[in-house]
């Protein structure tokens, strides 16, 4: 227990761990969906302090990691064109595409900029009417309303030089795909607290009915995650499968209806290819026909771009909870955050990056310099 002593609620945390030890009579495999949760688990060494038999595997909840290779290729292609300013969230710049990444496009003179909010991209478009401003919009349900609002505003203002390369993904269809796989090992899920802040947890009840698997919506602090794990283990030991909400401070059953409204106004559900996982039906959001004039994919004619994923990266299995980052022969050697083979090593929320940062001791000594 090397990290928890830096946490001010250490005593309560240790109490929950002890209670887990009393309640768990069998081994259980649990998955946290969200990359932010993965980070907390690693940072505080929570995975290493759980009673033997309770295993945490890490899910596909890093939007940067699951953005398909061809979407990255579309972004690099659009960003290379004259007159274009491509704007995105910082994590996207180093994600490798088939041939290059946005960081290299920028180094070669492409106008690529980082923002923390789509609102800034809108402002830039208003102030620079001579530039074709493309916002590269990735993200789960948490991010989609913000991106939707940017497009909605652009339409209302008639901002003709603004468009969006949209590649949003949805959590419940990804859980459904994981649970439908014959290789699935996951017996309980920690639900994504901020996705559910926006969407509520109504949708997760359908999953429970379909698969009889407990889901506990969890927050992002060490105590939140320990509590969610305890709630999951309790359900599993009692043979229950329900949706429970640990993160009541932020999540309600209905979610944020205003955010959902703008999301539904601008986006519609579509099939989506996930990097490392493949196509998942009805697992993405794309711009509605009424907003087609803001669809960068159409404007720049990149709809036909396709790409094959490199063989060495095992991110597919990492993102499905089948392997840990440290199971990869390239981890920490041929694949590092500075020189990533795959997306989970790039994003601050990727499981490989989190392991690299907090679990470098797991790299075999022979290769760890």
């Amino acid at each position, binding site marked *: 227990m090397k990290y928890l002593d830096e946490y001010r609620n250490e005593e309560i945390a240790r109490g929950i761990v002890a209670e887990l030890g009393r309640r768990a009579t069998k081994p259980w495999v649990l998955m946290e969906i969200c990359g932010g949760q993965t980070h907390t688990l690693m940072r505080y060494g929570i995975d290493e302090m759980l009673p033997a038999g309770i295993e945490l595997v890490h899910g596909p909840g890093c939007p940067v990691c699951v953005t398909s290779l061809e979407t990255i290729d579309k972004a690099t292609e659009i960003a290379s064109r004259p007159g274009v300013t491509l704007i995105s969230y910082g994590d996207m710049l180093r994600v490798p595409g088939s041939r290059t990444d946005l960081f290299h496009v920028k180094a070669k003179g492409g106008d690529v*900029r980082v923002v923390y909010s789509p609102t800034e991209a809108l402002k830039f478009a208003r102030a620079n009417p001579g530039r074709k401003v493309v916002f590269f919009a990735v993200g789960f349900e*948490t991010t989609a309303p913000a991106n939707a609002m940017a497009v909605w505003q652009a339409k209302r203002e008639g901002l003709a030089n603004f468009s969006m390369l949209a590649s949003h993904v949805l959590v419940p269809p990804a859980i459904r795909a994981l649970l439908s796989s014959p290789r699935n090992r996951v017996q309980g899920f920690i639900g994504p607290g901020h996705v559910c802040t926006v969407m509520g947890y109504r949708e997760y009840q359908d999953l429970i009915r379909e698969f009889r698997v407990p889901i506990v919506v969890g927050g*992002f602090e060490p105590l939140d995650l320990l509590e969610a794990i305890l709630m999951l283990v309790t359900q599993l030991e009692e043979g229950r499968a329900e949706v429970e909400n640990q993160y009541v401070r932020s999540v309600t059953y209905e979610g944020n209806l205003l955010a959902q409204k703008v999301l539904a106004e601008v986006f519609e559900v579509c099939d989506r290819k996930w990097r490392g996982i493949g196509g998942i039906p009805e697992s993405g959001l794309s711009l509605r026909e009424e907003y087609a004039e803001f669809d960068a994919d159409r404007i720049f004619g990149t709809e036909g771009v396709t790409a094959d994923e490199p063989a060495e990266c095992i991110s597919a299995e990492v993102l499905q909870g089948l392997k840990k980052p440290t199971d990869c022969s390239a981890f920490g050697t041929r694949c590092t955050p500075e020189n990533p083979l795959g997306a989970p090593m790039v994003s601050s929320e990727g499981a490989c990056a989190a392991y690299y940062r907090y679990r470098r001791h797991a790299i075999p000594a022979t290769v760890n310099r």
Partner: protein
Amino acid sequence: MCLAIPGKIVSSEMHNGIRVGRVQFGGITRETCLDFVPEASVGDYVIVHVGFAISRVDREEAERSYEVLESMGLLKGELESDLEGAEAEK
């Protein structure tokens, strides 16, 4: 980029029919859309994701989770921007 950060609303005004405010995260202030949290006013704490407040939280909760994010060194990247405060480029 999927993180959401708690901060304190320090100002709020209407801008083209949209409610926009400044939200303070530690020593950094960022423009934030407040349209999704009509219940929150100046002085309140909200959870902010990519420049949009998505829920209101109490002060103690906000301070605690801010501390956790800070301890993980994740705040800088999340609030990073090439454009914040930038003027129009010629």
